[in-house]
């Protein structure tokens, strides 16, 4: 079994507001709804990540970009491709159906 398919949910300090499932990931998932303009503490399977400045308000369990993602680039979560960016995405932006599209069943 690969690391990617069997993510180990990390034990994190109470301060973490978002979770990254794999070191290769481009996105983090929120553990609670977060307002725009906040510096977010992020916990990853491989330890603490740098904080990310949120450009959008992000709902519970929604994703934001950990780094800038170019239009057309593969977007990764669980260390695997979850689709591609349909527009340039900046770090801290909400990543969802408006800027991320499946690369399958097309």
């Amino acid at each position: 079994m690969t690391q990617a398919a069997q993510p180990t949910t990390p034990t994190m300090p109470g301060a973490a507001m978002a979770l990254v499932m794999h070191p290769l990931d481009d996105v983090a998932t929120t553990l609670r709804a977060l307002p725009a303009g906040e510096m977010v503490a992020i916990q990853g399977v491989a330890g603490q990540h740098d904080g990310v400045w949120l450009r959008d308000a992000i709902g519970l369990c929604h994703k934001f970009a950990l780094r800038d993602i170019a239009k057309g680039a593969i977007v990764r979560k669980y260390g695997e491709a979850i689709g591609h960016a349909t527009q340039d995405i900046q770090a801290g932006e909400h990543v969802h159906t408006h800027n991320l599209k499946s690369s399958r069943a097309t």
Partner: protein
Amino acid sequence: MTEPTFLGFARARGAAGVRNHLLVLSIAGLTGPAARRVAQALPGSRLVCMPYGGGLIGADQELHMRALAGLGRNANVGAVLLIGSDLPKIASLSQAIGASGKPVESVCLDDCGHDILTLSDRAIRVGAKLHRDLSRQRRLPVPLAQLFVGLECGRSDPSSGMAANPLIGKLTDMLREHGASAVFGETLEWLGAEHLLARRAATPAVGHALVQAVLRREQLATRQGVDLLGNNPGPTNIAAGLSTIEEKSLGAITKSGSGPINGLLQYGEQPAAPGLYAMDAPAYAPESLSGFVAAGAQMLLFSTGVGNSYVSTLAPTVKLSANPVAAQRLCEQLDFDASAVFRGEHSIDAAARELLERIVDIASGTLTWGEVLGEGDEVVSRIGEAL
């Protein structure tokens, strides 16, 4: 260390049941309304009605008969009252279910002078006797190895794939270590993650079959011009934060744990040996769960993100969520709160040990919320047009 056990109902052949249901099984759309009256007259019985049954052909007919026989043979069913309209079909099913050694009684419209009131009356009398006889049976300690669980997720959100499903996966690994069996399905929700499943296939042939099964579903969508966005992930998944089928699949397949996948089953097909199996089946929970129950699963583990009330009527369905809001809001519908795992306050290993204890407790007779609330049904898939 002593072998782990649960308190189950021993059967003449095969695994023990975790419940001892009288199944009132209407195998024809014609007899559904009468079967509902019969089940009402036999409180505590479990009713399953097929809304169709005539004019089925080919693979659709095979699936139909396989699934009905499988529901009847499920170890949670102590006795079966078959209600139907046509003698050959009811005789065939009676034989297929009776081979398991459990009591099966049939009441057929053709034998009742085509009089539905006669049928209802006979069915209630026969069913009453079956039900009373069932109540004489007592639970006995049974090795955990006899347990066969179905793994499902529904109305998922990202917490499902990140915490609830990995928790189920951990439990699956623990159950497999004890010799128990498991099955997962929802073929479309392997899309984008099939390479990870194929790597775990016990043989290259199984790996090939897994990949082909998901490609077939993908082509089914593309040929019809279906955009999966809005279908799977559906509107509820999307609102909850799932963006693509790949994201959903990568989270969904973690339910199956980390062990080898021993085979790919058809819908409702019973595995020949203990193991971990994939079932090529629709992703919609009511159809998917009945496929597992027909395959012999006595218990179902069902993760949800925002909440999903649906359960099997024959197999106790353990609902869990890692979504902190849902876990609080739906506390009389969720059997296990996994939100502490999502928040990182509880290790997945510790949660899996607690969940295993809960599973053994429910297998031994404690009711799930779904059983208490009566949210159960069985829905058998269709795959073709009828004549």
